[in-house]
């Protein structure tokens, strides 16, 4: 079962890859002098993200198989939390992104020159992602409080809240690191290209995926609140579970939409070749949806025996 999920997840991952960097920057109408640098950034970031996601999913699958086999004494055929798998994949891709951004430039042997112009650690902060992060933290806090009040899976809810706080701190650290990363003295046009790459790395490279993962974790937290512990039939919990389910699905939907938009690194494709690029994008979406439907059918077939 887990192996099937991993295979379909890999298929969905490949199908959901955005357009190649070189095509994307032309379709997005970036200035020609920015393109080589942005293409290198996109290709490098994608390579690291993909490697991180694959590694994380494979490790999680192997661990699930091992744990299930140990508990069941045989092959793993029990239900698998797909949201947890998606969160693991996204977490791996974020770690890949962080690894891609924490490189160091080689130190030159001769004289070194630096500008005395001050760079702001928040220079490339993404205000949209910042607002979303604050909202999600609020929701996660509310979920934590609700779980304590209802005495419903409090440890799980609070651990999600802890993970959310850690993710948002990781976001702050990574943003400052990208902004203050060493920069040689460059001509003005290359400095502008470097600014654009740092902006992309900060927002679509890290901030937005982290916010997406936070939303996914929030969705899991609220889903657990909606279900509640086994046998809990209190009136208070019944009244709350409907609201919790709605919040959970809304968060899951938001995470899916943000993840989908992030594939193209937030670049608006309106330049040359944008139409064919969108057509290819829809085809890839259809392939990803097909993979998801196939997965659902397989799950149903296996459950029916």
């Amino acid at each position, binding site marked *: 079962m887990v192996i099937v999920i991993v295979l379909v997840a890999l298929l969905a991952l490949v199908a959901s890859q955005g357009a190649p960097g070189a095509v994307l920057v032309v379709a997005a109408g970036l200035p020609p002098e920015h393109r080589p640098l942005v293409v290198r950034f996109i290709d490098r970031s994608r390579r690291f993200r993909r490697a991180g996601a694959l590694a994380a999913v494979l490790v999680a699958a192997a661990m699930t198989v091992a744990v299930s086999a140990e508990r069941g004494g045989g092959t793993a055929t029990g239900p698998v939390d797909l949201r947890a798998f998606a969160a693991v994949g996204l977490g791996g891709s974020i770690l890949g992104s962080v690894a891609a951004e924490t490189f160091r*430039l080689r*130190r*030159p*042997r*001769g*004289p*070194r*020159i*630096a*500008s*005395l*112009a*001050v*760079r702001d650690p928040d220079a490339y902060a993404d205000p949209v992602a910042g607002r979303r992060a604050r909202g999600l933290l609020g929701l996660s806090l509310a979920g934590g409080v609700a779980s304590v009040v209802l005495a419903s899976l409090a440890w799980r809810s609070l651990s999600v809240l802890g993970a959310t706080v850690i993710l948002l701190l990781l976001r702050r650290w990574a943003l400052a690191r990208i902004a*203050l*990363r*060493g*920069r*040689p*003295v460059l001509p003005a046009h290359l400095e502008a290209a470097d600014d654009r790459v740092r902006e992309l790395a900060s927002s679509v490279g890290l901030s937005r995926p982290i916010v997406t993962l936070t939303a996914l974790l929030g969705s899991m937290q609220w889903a657990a609140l909606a279900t509640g512990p086994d046998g809990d039939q209190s009136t208070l919990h019944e009244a709350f579970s409907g609201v919790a389910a709605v919040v959970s699905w809304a968060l899951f939907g938001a995470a899916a939409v943000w993840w989908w938009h992030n594939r193209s690194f937030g670049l608006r494709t309106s330049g040359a070749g944008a139409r064919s690029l969108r057509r290819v994008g829809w085809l890839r979406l259809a392939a990803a949806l097909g993979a998801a439907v196939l997965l659902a059918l397989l799950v149903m077939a296996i459950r029916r025996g």
Partner: protein
Amino acid sequence: MLLRVDPSLPLPVYEQIRSQMARLSASGELAAGTRLPTIRQLASDLGLAKGTVERAYLLLEAEGVVNCRGRSGTFLAARSVRTASEPADLRRELDEAADALAVMARQLGIGDDDAVAALRRALIRLG
């Protein structure tokens, strides 16, 4: 405004940073109140250890060239002629700086006349 260091020179890198910043301040090329880059930024731009830049900043702060205002950053102090309580202290500091210049000139194989000419040019630049 650019800062240039060369780790292959005999003069320690922190001293190169300190002397250039002191010169930029004394000549007015950098206005008083100008915010300087953080230690972390300058160290990563120059490919140096943070401690090296920190040492230069600490020396500059001790000399009253810069003001460190905690999380707000490091700012260039108002340009002022330093006064010491004892004229002998001033002379001793000047002799130490002259010694450093003489050692540097010898290590670079620069003749006495050229070293003195370099000092004159530096004094003229300061006005």
